[in-house]
């Protein structure tokens, strides 16, 4: 039954999108993190999607190939009274762009919903196929 492959395909997409949501959540949580004693602030992370062929022709799932780090320098704010300030009085914040992350979150949750609906449609079609010739 080739239709069963839909669950593999959409399932892989759902898990990839949920990993993307996870990464967005950790980026947003660390949006205001300042640099620790080592001088390194949190770096925003991004997932990299890749097509994964699943046996049958036309069945192409998704997987997260890598989770990359954003290497742009973090925001530096002059605040000598801050406990995290360095010798020059600057505080280094993480380089998370909150607006970008919010957009990313909406996109990920929409894609998640899309794939869930695909699975629901495939499930109802398969259930009707099981009743073939009975009604």
């Amino acid at each position: 039954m080739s239709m069963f492959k839909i669950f593999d395909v959409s399932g892989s997409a759902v898990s990839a999108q949920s990993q993307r949501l996870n990464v967005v959540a950790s980026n947003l949580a660390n949006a205001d993190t300042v640099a620790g004693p080592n001088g390194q602030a949190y770096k925003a992370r991004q997932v990299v999607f890749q097509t994964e062929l699943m046996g049958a022709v036309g069945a192409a799932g998704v997987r997260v190939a890598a989770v990359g780090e954003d290497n742009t320098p973090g925001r530096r704010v002059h605040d000598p009274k801050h406990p995290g300030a360095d010798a020059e009085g600057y505080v280094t914040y993480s380089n998370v762009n909150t607006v970008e992350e919010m957009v990313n979150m909406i996109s990920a949750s929409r894609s998640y919903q899309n794939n869930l609906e695909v699975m629901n449609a495939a499930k109802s079609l398969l259930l009707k196929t099981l009743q073939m010739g009975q009604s």
Partner: protein
Amino acid sequence: MINRLTDSLEFQSQALVLRAERQRLLASNIANADTPGYVARDMDFASALRAATGTSGVGGAAGAAVTAALRQALPAGSGFGASAETHLRYAAPSQTNLDGNSVDMDRERASFADNSVKYEATLRFINGSVRSMLDAMKSPQQG
């Protein structure tokens, strides 16, 4: 004799298999909506059905209406190997995209809904011919 009974079912079952295959193809496109570089694919249903059933009579009539719009959207094509695979086409992107992804979510969702309905229609055709076959086998006393 039994051949004649199942001949009408044969065509519908081929159509059902192709519908399931197209459903899987569309699911793959939707799954890869965010993958950079992914090129959406779709099936030329009419020619796939004609090749699967080996007729242009019934198959042509049923399949032609299905993909008039589909053909328009899918100009150039490239095959892969055997049977239904040779009827796969690459979808032309409706809008240019920086990451090279050519999945048009509106089109994919519309095709997906369309294909679901037609899959179910094929199922009902099969159920209908099975029922009429069973009715014909009944004795008059059974009602």
